[in-house]
């Protein structure tokens, strides 16, 4: 059986008129073109003439044909309406420009982008390094957790890498430090090393199986890295340290609430301090077209 990736045929972005708007537009358009997907631009608020003018200017400067994009505008609460628009148009992937770091005073008021990714039912792409000039996605880091969602997430990143011309894919397997001995003294350190080697071997076999199913004939260089550390944080730090261009992770199992922001875990570590562009792969059969 070959693993199929999550397919992205309808890609949407939200249009705000921030300093990064133009770069985001350019970036999402490039992505949609690579995927061969239909691009949607959503706007929440009153679509004034001024907006239309700026929007047209952007498209002109970026040399994008206006008819290639479907523009939808709606009034109402940004978060709610954006999610409604996604549902109405059966969007697969929502790409948003995001702040690299949440500001301390925004932790409680929460920026729209972060709020949406807590509630979204579509895959989410958070862009941190949008640029008008084209830049290729050279290195992708994807999570290799022992989780039912992981095979599909890896398959998606392989497919994505193929489309984006990626050269290197690193599967980062985060392992809990609780499963191995604590390095209390020399003897324990050795024991820890031995245990970690055993676990890494088992994990290697598991990931190898997934890769065989989905990356048999791809040209990318695929490697694995087993890292012991806190789940979520570790992969985020790794992506940053390795200068990855894209980090692909599983969607959260539960809806993230207010408490999760205070007692950070897993995905919250990544959202709190985005290391690079992040794709959160959502697994829903309902939105699958292929």
């Amino acid at each position: 059986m070959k693993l199929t990736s999550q397919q992205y045929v309808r890609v949407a972005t939200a249009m705000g008129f921030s300093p990064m708007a133009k770069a985001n537009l350019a970036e999402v358009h490039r992505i949609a073109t690579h995927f061969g997907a239909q691009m949607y631009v959503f706007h929440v608020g009153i679509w004034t003439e001024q907006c239309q003018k700026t929007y047209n200017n952007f498209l002109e400067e970026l040399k994008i044909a206006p008819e290639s994009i479907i523009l939808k505008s709606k009034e109402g609460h940004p978060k709610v309406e954006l999610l409604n628009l996604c549902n109405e148009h059966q969007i697969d992937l929502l790409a948003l420009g995001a702040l690299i770091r949440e500001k301390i005073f925004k932790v409680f008021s929460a920026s729209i982008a972060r709020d949406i990714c807590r509630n979204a039912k579509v895959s989410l792409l958070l862009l941190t390094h949008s640029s008008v000039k084209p830049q290729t996605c050279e290195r992708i880091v994807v999570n290799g957790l022992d989780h039912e969602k992981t095979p599909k997430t890896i398959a998606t990143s392989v497919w994505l890498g193929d489309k984006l011309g990626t050269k290197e894919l690193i599967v980062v397997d985060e392992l809990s430090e609780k499963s191995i001995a604590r390095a209390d003294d020399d003897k324990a350190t050795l024991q820890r090393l031995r245990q970690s080697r055993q676990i890494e071997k088992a994990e290697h076999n598991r990931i190898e199986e997934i890769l065989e199913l989905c990356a048999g004939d791809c040209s990318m260089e695929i490697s694995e890295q087993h890292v012991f550390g806190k789940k979520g944080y570790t992969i985020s730090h790794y992506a940053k340290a390795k200068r990855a261009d894209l980090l692909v992770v599983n969607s959260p199992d539960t809806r993230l609430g207010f408490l999760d922001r205070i007692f950070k875990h897993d995905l919250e570590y990544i959202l709190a301090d985005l290391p690079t562009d992040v794709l959160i792969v959502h697994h829903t059969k309902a939105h699958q077209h292929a």
Partner: protein
Amino acid sequence: MHKPKNGFKGFVENWQADLKAGFVVSLVALPISIALSLASGAPAIAGLIAAVIGGILVAHLGGSYVTITGPGNGLAVVTLAAITSLGGGDMLAGYYMALGAIVVSGILLFILGTIRLGVLADLFPTSAVQGMLAAIGIIILAKQSHVMIGTLDPESGSPIPLLIEFFSSLETLMWADTEHLRSAIVGIGSLLFLIGFSKIRVRWMHAVPAPLWVVVLAVLAQVIGTNVTGESFFGPKYLVNIPADWMSAWRLPDFSGIQSGAFWGAAVSLTFIASIESLLSIKGMDRLDPYKRKSNVNKDLRALGIATAVSGLLGGLSVVTVIARSSVNVSNGAKTRSANFFHGILILIFILFLREMLTQIPLPALAAILVYTGYKLLNPSQFSKIAQVGLEQLFLFFFTLFATLLYGLISGIVLGMAATLIVQFIITGATMEIVRYFNRPNTLLYEEEENKYILSINYFANFLNYPRLKSKLDSIPTSAVVIADFSSTSFVDATVMEHLAGYVESFEQHGGSLDLVGLDSMAPASSHPLGVQSKSTRGSNVFQKQSAGTRLSNKQEKLSKFAVLEGMKYTAWPDLTWDEKVNQFDYFRHHRIDQTINLLEDRTSRLIAIEVVTHIGEFTMLDSQHMACVVLQPEGISLPKFTLDRERIFGRISSLAGIQDIELGSDQFDRRFNLKGEDEKAIKRFFNPECLAFLASHPVFHMESNGKAILIFHKERVASVAEFKLMVSFARDFYQRICAKS
């Protein structure tokens, strides 16, 4: 070196060496244990019980190797406070209640060890701990200086008034009786002897430790004096009191106060100080251990807990690991824990057979030993050392010292921590960052290659999040090669720098290495290698030249030495013109240069090696990257435009897209490298067989040629000194190859 075996085998193998060391230690421990009982306000036997129980139990249950356990200096201060406050004036009642608190604190210590809080001692800022230890020294000295000159019960209880009162105690000597005068002479004489002992050149005298000399000489004075004068030279109130029936006088500790706050306050203080004193000593001894064994601190804490509880039940003081006696142990050739065991057993023998002798020890002599110990703890020579690390560290040291003297040990160290934090807020300006990230994970450790680890530290590294860094460092085998990358760290404080220095030493001793990189672009707050290092996180160019003219980091020192060896010119903070020289390459279109550091320049300026700090993308200034590279400007040869790498990095440069891959026909080369360029002929001419053979025999370096110069680099991260050297020598050889052929 052959490491001594553990357990019974180790005992059989090393018992002679351990017995000798244990014997010498017991000679030191005997007077000190009695003296510390005196300082604690407890009966003389209490300290001896702690030494015996500590030696016997911890030697069996402990997790460290050459440490000695018994009554401790810091504990004396806390115990005295507990006895006075719990007894409400009645010292004996207070003693039995304090014993209850000691038993409880033993249980608490055991729990600390069980839940692995051995990391606790590392949580405190170095200067604050030093300040607290110095304050303990002053507290002991303040009280005992009175006893030393014969005033057995000075009026004040708190240290600062006690110090002032010392002069009035001196005054009382004017109209004191002969006994009082004698004791003052013995006390001051003992102190002078202790101070001068290290300067005495007579070798045989050094066979016996100084405290024992003091005690022996004082006992001799008492015995001879008594015989000559025909009456008691010193009255019973000036002598150590160990009743003949001390064993039958035993009674259960008094737990009646267990519901009161004062009882628990005493128990918690005892636990806290016992764990800090022990953990610092264990850590210190790990460095002194001739066999470089690593102690299991949590196991040791559990053992100390059990020993403390048992000692308390038997009427003894808290058992802690003590550094002074432990280092005597090591310098006398101790090999395993049995030395501690022998020391305990020997003290038990002394109590049983030399009790008569022990009761002849005059208190002023013991007080002199304590005054000397207190002075050693204060150690005024450390002031200038602390000031070298940073004046703010000296301020924190004295702040904690006075806070401890005024408000007690626990409040003192807590205030010291708070002050350290505030000073860090001011110096680094990273208040918000510290508040937000101190409880989040900030370290990443992964094995890049077999036995080669990368440890990356995010945000900042100070005493608050040090336990996380420590647990990562501890998990790496010390024979491994580790690169600790601080390039995305905004500041590193003095406490962490000091701990790291210890780790660098430990890795080197075990055949590994720990390289600290990414600290160069931080401006040190002082010229000391352990000073606070910080860099501004706000803008890319804000810290451009602020560090110029200040001291070189460890890595920079090594690089400048390397430059001299290679006949190159080294500049730590090159000026802006060098940016342009590097900027000419396409690679840097996407990696905007913020700063250049560590420039190595060939005499002909044909070869430069430089470290650049770059950022990627637009509007992003936070995400900076360090990398080292070499720029070659070959003379007199035609240089084609090309890129050479392992099919990764240069693909990112979109302006080169469409340029074809070039195969040179050599299988080995084509498989390993990806060569791209426009002018295939010129490139094939350039890469002649000799050049190919050279490249094939070296690690893969990335190269970009723009027709005028060649950019060479290894990895897109900070380079360690070794990697830097490797790159320079590679570039130099490569340069010779390509120039030679034309």
